[in-house]
């Protein structure tokens, strides 16, 4: 008998995605979700979108352990496979080991976003026994001076480096990520060198957006689009990746809808209070999971939100650079109060990326 049990991949992730895509084609299945376990954090990053506001009782409104375990059981039944645990700083929760091990033992492929300053021996043992798929650590500078200035906490760079080294020593897959801003753009090549010297993959994003509480202050930290893309494209590998991505997907029909991503179709986000959203960025549709059940929220509460979106009003309709700008109606809503009014900044980023890719393509 052939293939009663077959390996899902032929040696790379793309094959797995092809297999999974065939299985769920045309279905609305929440196979990828993110859980913001807390919005509390031991750092005070200047650009943070999730930071607690003065006087806000963040910890008092968080779901407790049993509530998170109930949600994880429900999203398992609903078909979630890829799970991102994020915050705030998830390791601040005393019950993180209980939540994490429950997710792993139930077969979720878990990625953790952390600042790596709270990596204890018990966390390392936990990850050794039940390895995550990936740990992504936020680093904002190649030295303490810049990183600690952005995080607002002296000593946070040294702690993060210790945490990263400990993860690597245990053989836990680590990736570094950063946000490009006016406080660290000069330092960016050094951050990339730091990652390279440690054999760690690195990614960064110039997209800074307002806080969830509506504070637009972080937008002042954006680096000019031309400068941001020049830094991005200084790496030939990244140019090649962008070019390959554009060539692969530019002919793929995206439909006429306002949304052309997996938001609310294959992805979801749950915040520390237990509110279910179609993704981290889209806040216009929500369902309270405290008293309710995930499947009900997924089926009923926002399955139509994409149809209701006024695609015809979108200024981005028909734009060939949508693949390159980080097009996201949820982002637009947060920045401009309208899902159809694009971010001028991200539009400029897309225009610049397009120009760089085309010029490279014509030369090669």
């Amino acid at each position: 008998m052939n293939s009663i049990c077959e390996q899902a991949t032929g040696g790379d992730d793309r094959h797995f995605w092809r297999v999974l895509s065939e299985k769920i084609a045309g279905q609305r299945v929440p196979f990828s979700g993110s859980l913001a376990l807390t919005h509390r954090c031991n750092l005070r990053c200047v650009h943070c979108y999730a930071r607690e506001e003065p006087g806000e009782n963040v910890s008092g409104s968080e779901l407790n352990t049993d509530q998170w375990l109930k949600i994880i059981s429900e999203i398992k039944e609903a078909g979630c496979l890829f799970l991102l645990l994020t915050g705030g700083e998830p390791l601040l929760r005393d019950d993180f080991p209980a939540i994490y091990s429950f997710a792993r033992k139930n077969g979720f492929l878990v990625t953790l976003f952390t600042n790596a300053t709270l990596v204890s021996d018990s966390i390392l043992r936990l990850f050794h026994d039940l390895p995550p798929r990936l740990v992504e650590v936020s680093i904002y500078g190649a030295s303490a001076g810049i990183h600690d200035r952005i995080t607002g906490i002296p000593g946070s760079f040294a702690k993060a480096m210790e945490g990263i080294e400990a993860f690597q020593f245990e053989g836990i897959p680590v990736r570094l990520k950063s946000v490009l801003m006016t406080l660290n753009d000069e330092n960016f090549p050094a951050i990339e060198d730091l990652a390279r010297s440690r054999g760690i993959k690195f990614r960064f994003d110039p997209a800074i957006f307002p806080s969830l509480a509506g504070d637009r202050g972080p937008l002042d930290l954006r680096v000019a689009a031309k400068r941001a893309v020049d830094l991005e494209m200084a790496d030939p590998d990244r140019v090649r990746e962008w070019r390959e991505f554009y060539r692969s997907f530019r002919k793929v029909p995206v439909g006429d809808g306002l949304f052309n991503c997996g938001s609310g179709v294959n992805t979801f986000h749950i915040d520390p209070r237990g509110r279910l959203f179609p993704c981290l960025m889209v806040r216009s549709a929500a369902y309270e999971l405290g008293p309710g059940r995930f499947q009900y929220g997924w089926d009923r509460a926002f399955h139509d939100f994409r149809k209701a979106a006024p695609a015809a009003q979108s200024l981005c309709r028909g734009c060939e650079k949508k693949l390159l700008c980080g097009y996201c109606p949820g982002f637009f809503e947060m920045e401009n109060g309208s899902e159809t009014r694009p971010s001028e900044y991200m539009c400029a980023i897309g225009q610049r990326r397009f120009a760089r890719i085309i010029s490279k393509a014509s030369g090669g």
Partner: protein
Amino acid sequence: MNPTGKFRRKGSIAGRRIAGESFLIPVVGTPVDLENIFVLNPLADYIWERLDGERTLAAIVAEIIAEFDVAPEQAGADAGEFVGQLLERGLAEEVA
């Protein structure tokens, strides 16, 4: 494969059903690599669910014959091959 043998799933692997398809996901050991995820066809999934350490392989084969449109010889061969694959990959174990 011993038809009177009893087999059970190991805790090192989790069975998941997503959009009607069944996957086996590694839980412990080396970092989770998508290469190590297995897709089960319906018959394999049916067998996997019954590897509880209580049923004999012969009992599972009898259930297969009752449930699926398959000849007894074929059912026995399929079940034996699948359980053999699981044992070989360390995903299941024989109960003493």
